[in-house]
Structure formats: structure tokens, C-alpha cells
């Protein structure tokens, strides 16, 4: 059984009478420990699919299972709890809580999880050091570059020890050097700590580096086997 199992997933948006078929029957498996890139042009349904896997939205048809559990069954509060404990998120922009420092942002998820302050503080510091930002622990997001903010977001995403980290175009707002640096970071976390990543991008430079790529086009997975040796 794969960690993520999406079966026949469709998503239809209805806004003011306009019907959009964002996903039209997607099947996807992600195994624990994998590093998967969800590739596809803008509007192909990447965000929609990540939202469904991330328990932020429910499919119009089909099922999404996380570790064997159907995500359409629990209540909103239970889903919040599931996101808190099992999922890590990195978004495209404005990831960080602006009134909290880098360290507090990393601590935030652990705080919600109920990790005591004396444990989460050193853990946040060591995570920030791991992403190369130990010196910026007390800086607010406003005082950091876009690349630094995204690395704090990655540190925060893994701080809660999730089963999988979902990253929706985390490099979209970064220059190519920062993007490559972020990708290096995620790859090393995958390799050294076994963190499972599923992240979307439409940046071909990143797609070229990926070990496993799933291509989305017009709401469908276009099978194009592209596994690169590590």
C-alpha cells in the first residue's frame, strides 16, 4: 500500500455558472521516502491535486487515501488535526506568519502539536541550522529574502515530523540560484532524513533534475516515464 493513493480523482469547480474540470480522473501513488515532482503547465491542475492530497479540499469524485485512510470521511476539525500531524506544507508565497520570527514560525507547528517549549526551541534552532539559516533565527519574514523565507518554510514543514511534505511551486518566486539551493535542500532532506516530498513546478530546470516526475496536463496524468538515477 502506497502512502498516497489517489484513485479516479476528479474535481469540478463551479463559479458563477462556469464549470471547470480541474481534474478529470487522476490516479497517483506516492510511496514513503519518494521524491516526486508534479510537473505541468499553469492551469493543468497541480494546485488542485495537492489541495486534495493535503486534505484542504475534497474531490468531486474518486478517493484520496493517506496511509490507507480515506480523506473524504473525517470532519473539518479531524482534517485539521490530520494536516497538523501527518502533512507538511510549503506554499508558493507568503508562507510564513509575518508576526513571528523564523524560529517561532518553525516552532509554531510543534506548538500546535503540543511539543513542550524546552524541546521545540532547540529543535527549531537545529532545523534552522540544517537549512543554513541559524543566524537568522530571530529575524521576522519581512527581513529575509524570498529564498530564505522558503527555506524557513521547509524547516517548518518538516518540524512536525509529517509523513509527507507537499510543496506547491515553492520555487516559482525565486531566482534560479535560490531555486536550485531550495531544491538541493529538499533533496538532501529526502536522502539523509528520508522525508517524503511531493512538489509541483512548471520550471523545466527543476523537472530535469527530478528522479520521479508525474506530468499533469489538462487535469489528467500524462504517463511519461522519466525516472532519473539518483
Amino acid at each position, binding site marked *: 500500500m502506497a502512502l498516497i493513493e489517489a484513485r479516479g480523482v476528479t474535481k469540478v469547480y463551479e463559479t458563477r455558472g462556469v464549470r471547470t474540470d480541474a481534474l478529470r480522473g487522476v490516479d497517483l501513488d506516492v510511496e514513503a521516502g519518494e521524491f516526486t515532482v508534479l510537473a505541468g503547465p499553469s492551469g493543468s491542475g497541480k494546485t488542485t491535486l495537492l489541495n486534495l492530497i493535503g486534505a484542504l479540499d475534497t474531490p468531486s469524485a474518486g478517493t484520496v487515501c493517506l496511509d490507507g485512510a480515506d480523506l473524504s470521511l473525517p470532519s473539518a476539525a479531524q482534517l*485539521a488535526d490530520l494536516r*497538523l*500531524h501527518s502533512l507538511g506544507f510549503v506554499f508558493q508565497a507568503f508562507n510564513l*506568519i509575518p508576526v513571528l520570527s523564523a524560529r517561532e514560525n518553525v516552532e509554531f507547528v510543534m506548538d*500546535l502539536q503540543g511539543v513542550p517549549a524546552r524541546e521545540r526551541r532547540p529543535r527549531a534552532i537545529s532545523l534552522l541550522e540544517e537549512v543554513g539559516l541559524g543566524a537568522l533565527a530571530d529575524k521576522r519574514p519581512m527581513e529575509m529574502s524570498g529564498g530564505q523565507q522558503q527555506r524557513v518554510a521547509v524547516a517548518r514543514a518538516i518540524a512536525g515530523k509529517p509523513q509527507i511534505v507537499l510543496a506547491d511551486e515553492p520555487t516559482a518566486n525565486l531566482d534560479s540560484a535560490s531555486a536550485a539551493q531550495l531544491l538541493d535542500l529538499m533533496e538532501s532532506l529526502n536522502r539523509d532524513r528520508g522525508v517524503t516530498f511531493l512538489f509541483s513546478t512548471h520550471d523545466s530546470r527543476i523537472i530535469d533534475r527530478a528522479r520521479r516526475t508525474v506530468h499533469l496536463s489538462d487535469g489528467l496524468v500524462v504517463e511519461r516515464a522519466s525516472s532519473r538515477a539518483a
Partner: protein
Amino acid sequence: MRNGFLQRAGATLRAFVEPSTWRLAWRNVGRNGRRSAIVLCAAAVGVCGGLLTMAVSYGTALAMVETAIATELGHLQIHAQGFNDDPGLAHRLPQMSELGGDLAHDPAILAWAPRLRTEGLAYSSRASAGTRVVGVDPERESELSLLERSVIAGEYFGPKKRRAMLGADLAARLRVETGDKIVLSIQDKDGEMVSELFRVAGIFRTPLPELDQATIFVRLHELQPILGVVGEISETAIRADPKSDLPALANRVRAASGVGTEVHTWDQLRPILVFLVAFFEAQAGAMYGAVFIAMLFGIANVMLMAVVERIPEFGILGALGMPPARIGAMIVAESLMLSLLGLAVGIGLTFAVIALLGDGIDVSRFTMARAYGVGFRIVPALRFSDWTVPSIAAVATAIVASLAPVLRARRIRPAEALRHV
């Protein structure tokens, strides 16, 4: 359904004791410093205005009561049974040289004075006027009431016999000055008209208009034979220690005075004073209500703006798995901080103003004040409840004001919120 509600309420309460709820709320209050400062100032000025209105109202009511008590009323009066319903010579008490029973040594009694009351006509060579005629013991009366200290012309009875003290307005109406003659025409206890000559020893002005307009004080022992009631009086007025328990003292006086007497406290003797005190309080209360309603809408509006501005951020918080109860608690905490800070600043401001007005506001220039019998000075005064009521109101205001913002925040769905970044 009910269970779900209880669970949610429990989760919200638990969220309130999380330090991170308050830390986040505090930072959020600080992030739009100018807006927070505006709400805070508005709340502070409102609270201060409300408190000062309360203080002045209460001070006014207090001054009114104290003036009435000090000028003539006393805290307690002993009469013959039936006097209160039919004040007249028909109801009399025997005059005593000391208060009866244990009252002579009662520490709660600061002073007492006997009085004989009737009504009649006063004639001068130029005019006449209806007037109350009160016989008093000048020494005892000066310990009890403000009469001696209210003399503005002449002297307090003086050494000579058959002297009268006139209220300033009455003296003006009769067009008499000190030393002038007046004739008092009154009925004795049997209904016979008697006329007696007095000279004006002094003229007084008190804070009570009715006293100044139509009262003549003469010596008790001179009035008694005129009315045919030697050794008898209408009332004994008692001034009590303000810190003493007045109803308890009234009961002791009642017990000592025995059958055939009635003992009344100032509020029973002048129900209008009680009404006016309540009226002033209601007025201040209405002002207060208005302040808190304005505060409610102000805070609700600011918090709603703060939520709408931060929709993507609420999306992130929700996506990360922050429970809805904690998001709600954070908003309520922000609102509480604004309102409690406003309250604190408002109370500080009030203290400052009251300290500046330490010896009170001089109202002797205002005829209104005289009409109410306020006296010449209002010292703003606040009771314990004047602090607790706004504090509770501020908390309630904050919670009610955060209702709409919390509901708005609950409608934010992370997937939607994040799409709009």
C-alpha cells in the same frame, strides 16, 4: 449536536490558556500600530468619559445628600407617632435633657438637637410672608446643622432675648435687615392666634433654597410658651458618624425611644433624595451604555477589517492545522487586548483627572446646582462598583465585538484563501 457544541466550547476555552494564542494576538495587535492605537484611544476616552460622568454624578448625588443632612435633616429624626403623615403641633414629644437609654453614650451619635416646628405668617413694617417657624436650641443646633456657619449677616441669635434667624430670601421678601422688627403670627396648640414680636439677629444662606426662602429659627424655650407646649418638642434630629451602620443605629434609637414615637432615616424623610440619586446614576449609566455600544462597533469593525486583510494568512494557519477553536480564540484575544488596554488607559486617565480635581469642582456659580441642593462643591467620587462594572463591560464588549470577525474567519477555507495570494 449538543455534544459537538460542548466540545467546541471546551476546545475554545483550552485555546485561551495557550500562551501562544496570546503571543500571536499581542503581535497582531501591534502589527497595525496606528489602527490599534486609534481604537485604544477611542476606548480610553470613552471609558474615561463614562467614569468621569459617573464620578461627577455620584459626587453630585453625594453632595446633595450630604448637604441635605448637614443643613437641617440630620441622619435620623425622632418624632411622635403620626408626625410624618401630619406634621403639626398635634404630635409632640416630651423634651429631654439627654437622649434616652444607652443612646447618651452611643459612639455612632455625633450630635443631636431638639426642635419645635410650626407654620405662620411673618410681618415686617413693609411686607408679610408665610413661613415655617422652628424653635431650636442654639448650642445643640450648631453642633448638628450648618445653620450657625451659614450666617451671612448679623450674628447667630446673639445674647439678647427674642431674636430670630431669617433665611436670606425671606429677609429680602420682608425687606428687613438685622436689628429690624418682625411680628410672627402663629396658632398655639389650641388653635388660638397669637402674635409675638422678634428682632432679626442674623440672616443665613444655606445650599437649600426652601430653607432660605421660608424659614425662621427662634429659640426653642421662647417658642414653647408662645405655643403653649412648655417642655415639649416636635422632633429630635440626630447626626450620625458617617462610617456607622445607619439602619442599625436607627434600630437602637427606635428601641430606646419606645412606644408612641417614630424614627426615620434621612432617605425615609426625603424620598426625593433617593429618587434623585437613582436618577443621576441612571443618567450616568445611560452615558456608559452609549460609550460601550460605540466601543463595541468600533472594535468589531477594526477586528473585521483585520480578519479580511489577513485572509491568506488565515488560510496558512488553517492549512498548517491550527484548530478553528484556536483561530477563534486568537481573534477574541486580540479584541480583548484592545478593549482591556483601552480600559486600563481610560482608568489611568480618569485617575489623573480626579487627582487634578482633588478638591472638587466649584459649582457655587451655577443656579442649577442650588436648585438641586448640591452645595457649593462637587467632589467627583467613585465607588468600587464604578470600577468593576466597566471592567466587566469591557470584557463583554470585546467578546461580543469579536463574534462577527470570528464567524468571518470560520468561513475562510484554506484552499480558497491560498488561491488569492
